């Protein structure tokens, strides 16, 4: 379990849209307190399920093009991509268990 790998406007296509499996992207910014709350939950989640779902973080301050393209206007927002398409979106703080449940990974 460690800090999540970052994705940028420049690497988004290769790392997310053209990825083979599902990718969960954490849209965050340094000034957002709930984002800081979410980070350890997400790191724990990635430690547990990183083999099935790639988890990346995207700083919305530094990567406004991707933020605007996906219309993210509230952070933290988690977006699950698969085959280049948005499959699911979770807005706001969630804990690890709720995240697993929302993504259908619990049990």
């Amino acid at each position, binding site marked *: 379990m460690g800090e999540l790998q970052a994705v940028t406007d420049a690497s988004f296509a290769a790392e997310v849209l053209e990825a083979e499996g599902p990718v969960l992207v954490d849209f965050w910014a340094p000034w957002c307190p709930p984002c*800081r709350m979410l980070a350890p939950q997400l790191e724990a989640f990635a430690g547990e399920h990183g083999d099935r779902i790639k988890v990346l973080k995207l700083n*919305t301050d530094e990567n406004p093009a991707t933020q605007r393209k996906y219309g993210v206007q*509230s952070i933290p927002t988690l977006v699950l991509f698969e085959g280049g398409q948005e499959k699911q979106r979770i807005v*706001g703080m969630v*804990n690890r268990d709720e995240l697993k449940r929302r993504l259908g990974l619990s049990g």
Partner: protein
Amino acid sequence: MNAEVRNVVVVGGGPAGLTAAIYAGRFGMSPLVLEPGLPGGKLTLIDRIENFPGFPGGIGGPELAQRLDEQAREYGAEFRAVAAEAIRRDGALIQVATGDGEVTARSVIVASGATPLRLGVPGEREFLGRGVSYCATCDGPFFRDKDIAVVGGGDSAVEEALCLTRFARSVTVIHRRERLRASEVLQQRALAHPLIRFRWSAEVIAVEGSDQVEGIRLRDRQGESLLPAEGVFIYVGIVPVTGFLGGQVELDARGHLRAAEDTATSLPGFFAAGDVRGKPLRQVATAVADGAVAAMAAEKYLTGDGV
């Protein structure tokens, strides 16, 4: 198996819970605080607190949160980053179920706070994160140079409207009454602000848009109209977080925990502090006052001094 019995478990790490932990720690009760998010609770979402005594010029919410957290740890409070999910009386003891096993306690201070009330209109849920927000501090920067709306007329609504003027091109406050409920100093500042407009006696009927929020449908004395806006921030009240108590603690008519002057609830060993309890004024100052009283009451309960 975890057989350790805690003297007091504090549910919630906002200003009420952290103050309870400071006092309980100083009473030698080794409090355990259950807080799934950041210590400080809602404080961490408040840009600036101007009316907390002792801080002329105000203090940032996150900074006050961090100071309270540090002070609680100084007196031996422990923290666990889990939520309380259920409670069960077990003779003289209390079992608190969390997302990560049970905790056994002799007393519980409920400082679980409250969550924002929804308007309950079409579009509100659909556009969450696409223009609908309950946190100006979190999402304000996404609305740079845009026209946005704030719904509500209390302290929170007006404070957040003022905060949003740092980013937005215009902020329209939509309020269902003819005048604000917010404190006089905030009212004066908002009424005089060049970027803030008001729609009085107006009710939100729907949030509209395609991919993102594009406008807010209102009804007022002139009838229905569409207010163009790319964002809407909703501050119409709060709902106390009491679900984990499973109806075992008496609530008042508005769903807050009924608590006496000394914070004792209807269930022996349970004390209520902060936004979760019924009281006339919900402020950081009253939350910390509740926390201090609750720690004292829990201590008296444990030592059998009667309360």
